[in-house]
C-alpha cells in the first residue's frame, strides 16, 4: 500500500509554499520495516515540531536534522534526564544498579534544534499548533508525536506510586526510583517467602514481557537464595493468554507452571488494601480477593491525557479506550491530519510498545514525513516489528522478535527463538543498552 500525502491540513497554503527541493529523497526499500535512506538532504523551511524527547523523540530529532536542510526543528519535553527503561526489570530484580539506567537527554540532542523544556497540554491539529504548560503556543507545519504513554496508578483502587517499596508493594514501571524500591521489596520477599502475586492489567502495556520477566527473575532469585520452598507464586493475567505471540504463549504456559508459578486466568487486578496486604481481582465469577506478602502491581496504561483528549486519538475501535494516537499502522501517518506522524508507545498499532519497535518505527515515520515535505509518495512501511529478550533466569533468555502477523522474524537465524540461551541474555546485559544509545543518535 502506498499513500500520498494530501497536505490536507488547514495550513495547506503555507506548506504548499514551503521551499522544497527534491534533491534526491529517499529511495525506499519497498517492503518490510526497512526505511527510506536519504541520498541527500531535502531543502525546506518547514517548521517541524517533535513532542517528547524519549527514545522515539530523540531518534526522530537526530534523523530529521540529518535529512532536512533548513527546517526549523523544535522538540518539546520538560524532562532533562533520560531513562533507559529496558534496564528497569534488571534494576527491580537486583541485577543492575539504578545508576546504570540514568542518562541525560542533552547528550543526544542534535545541534541546531530548539529544545523547549515544557510539557504540551493541548494538541490543536486544526490550527497546526500545540500549547505548553508554560503558556507558549507553538505552531508547526509538520508534527511528530512521540509522547510515550502514561501509567495509570489510579486504575487500581488503593494504589499510588508512593506505596511502591512499602508493605510488600512493587512496580517496575517506569522509573529507576520505583524499580529500586521494588527491588527492596523483592529482596525482602525472597529472603522470607510467603505469597507473591504478579499482576498484569487489561489493555496494552509497555514491554508486555516486563511483568513476566519480573515474575521469572523473582522465582529464580528464590531458587538462588535457597528459599524457593518458602514461597507460593501466582501470575494473574487479565484473560486466558500470557503473550500475544502464539508459540511464546505456549512456551510460557509450560514454563511458568513447571517452575511452580500458578496461573490465575482472567484475574485483572482492580484494587489493593495495602494495610491488609489484600488484592482484589475482577474475575468472570465476580470480585475475588487474595492475601499476599509481595505484590507486583502493573497498573493499566494509556496515551498521555493531552494526547488522548485531543483530536489526534482514535475515536472508535480497539485503540479508542486507551486514547492511543491514530496512525496508519504501516506509514505511521495520521489519517485525518496528514502533516502529523507518530511513533513509539503513544501510537495505537496492533503490535508495539517496545524500544525495539521504536527502532523500527522511527525511520519509517521520519522517511514518510520527509517524503511528505518533498511532496512524494509515502513509501516506507512499518511491518509491526517488535522484540523482547524474554529473560527467564539470570543468565538465560529467549530472543523473541515478531511482526504484525505474529510471525517470528529472528535477526540471528542461528538462535532458536523458542529455546532459552545465554546469548540473548548476553545481549540484554551487555549490548542492547549500547544499541539503544545508538538508536537515540539515529544511527541504527
Amino acid at each position, binding site marked *: 500500500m502506498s499513500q500520498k500525502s494530501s497536505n490536507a491540513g488547514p495550513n495547506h497554503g503555507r506548506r504548499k509554499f514551503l521551499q522544497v527541493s527534491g534533491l534526491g529523497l529517499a529511495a525506499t526499500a519497498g517492503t518490510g520495516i526497512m526505511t527510506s535512506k536519504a541520498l541527500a538532504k531535502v531543502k525546506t523551511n518547514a517548521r517541524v515540531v517533535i513532542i517528547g524527547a524519549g527514545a522515539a523523540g530523540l531518534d526522530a530529532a537526530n534523523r530529521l536534522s540529518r535529512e532536512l536542510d533548513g527546517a526549523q526543528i523544535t522538540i518539546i519535553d520538560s524532562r532533562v534526564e533520560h531513562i533507559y527503561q529496558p534496564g528497569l526489570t534488571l534494576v527491580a530484580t537486583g541485577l543492575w544498579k539504578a545508576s546504570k539506567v540514568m542518562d541525560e537527554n542533552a547528550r543526544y540532542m542534535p545541534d541546531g534544534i530548539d529544545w523547549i523544556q515544557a510539557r504540551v497540554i493541548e494538541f490543536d491539529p486544526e490550527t497546526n499548533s500545540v500549547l505548553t504548560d508554560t503558556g507558549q503556543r507553538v505552531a508547526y507545519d509538520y508534527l511528530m508525536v512521540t509522547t510515550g504513554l502514561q501509567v495509570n496508578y489510579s486504575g487500581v483502587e488503593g494504589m499510588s506510586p508512593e506505596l511502591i517499596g512499602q508493605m510488600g508493594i512493587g512496580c517496575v514501571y517506569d522509573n529507576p526510583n520505583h524499580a529500586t524500591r521494588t527491588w527492596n521489596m523483592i529482596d525482602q520477599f525472597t529472603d522470607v517467602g510467603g505469597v507473591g502475586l504478579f499482576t498484569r492489567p487489561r489493555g496494552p502495556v509497555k514491554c508486555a514481557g516486563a511483568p513476566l520477566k519480573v515474575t521469572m527473575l523473582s522465582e529464580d532469585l528464590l531458587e538462588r537464595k535457597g528459599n524457593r520452598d518458602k514461597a507460593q507464586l501466582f501470575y494473574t493475567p487479565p484473560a486466558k493468554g500470557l503473550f500475544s505471540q502464539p508459540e511464546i504463549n505456549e512456551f510460557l504456559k509450560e514454563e511458568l507452571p513447571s517452575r511452580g508459578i500458578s496461573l490465575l486466568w482472567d484475574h485483572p487486578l482492580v484494587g489493593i488494601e495495602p494495610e491488609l496486604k489484600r488484592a482484589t481481582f475482577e474475575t468472570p465469577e465476580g470480585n475475588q480477593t487474595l492475601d499476599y506478602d509481595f505484590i507486583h502491581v502493573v497498573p493499566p496504561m494509556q496515551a498521555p491525557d493531552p494526547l488522548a483528549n485531543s483530536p489526534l486519538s482514535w475515536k472508535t475501535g480497539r485503540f479508542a479506550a486507551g486514547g492511543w494516537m491514530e496512525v496508519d499502522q504501516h506509514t505511521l501517518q495520521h489519517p485525518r491530519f496528514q502533516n502529523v506522524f507518530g511513533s513509539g508507545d503513544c501510537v495505537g498499532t496492533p503490535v508495539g510498545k517496545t524500544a525495539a519497535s521504536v527502532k523500527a518505527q522511527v525511520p519509517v515515520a521520519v522517511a514518510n514525513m520527509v517524503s511528505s515535505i518533498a511532496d512524494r509518495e509515502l513509501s516506507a512501511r512499518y511491518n509491526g516489528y517488535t522484540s523482547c529478550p524474554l529473560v527467564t533466569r539470570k*543468565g538465560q533468555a529467549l530472543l523473541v522478535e515478531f511482526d504484525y502477523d505474529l510471525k517470528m522474524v529472528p535477526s540471528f537465524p542461528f*538462535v532458536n527463538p523458542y529455546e532459552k*540461551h545465554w546469548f540473548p541474555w548476553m545481549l540484554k546485559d551487555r549490548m542492547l543498552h549500547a544499541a539503544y544509545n545508538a538508536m537515540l543518535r539515529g544511527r541504527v
Partner: protein
Amino acid sequence: MAFSIVGILAVLLEAFRPLIPLIVAVVVADIALLAYTVSKGQFAHAKARRLSLWAGAAFMVGAFLVGPSLTQVTFGSFLSITDWVMLGAMSVGVGIAGFVLTLPMTSLIKF
C-alpha cells in the same frame, strides 16, 4: 531486523564509549610503532608473528574464560551449542584483535 555496517559500528562505538580515550591511546601508540617498525624494515618478522600469535591465543583463551563472568554468570548458564559457538566466535574476535594490536610491539624485538 536487518543490520548495516554503520549500525554495527554505531553500536560498538556506544558500547566502548567510556573506553574511547584508552582505545585511542592504544591505537595511536600502535600506529606510531607500526610506522617505526616498517621504516626500520622489521615489521612482522617471523619471530614477531609467532609471539603475536601466542599473545592472540592468550587473549582468545582469556576472553573465553572470563566471557560468562562479564555477564554476571558462569558456564552453568550455557544451555545450547549456540551459546558455546557464540562465545567461541567472540573469543576468536578478541584473539584476532590481540594479534593485530601486539604485532607492532613484538616487531620491536630484534630478530
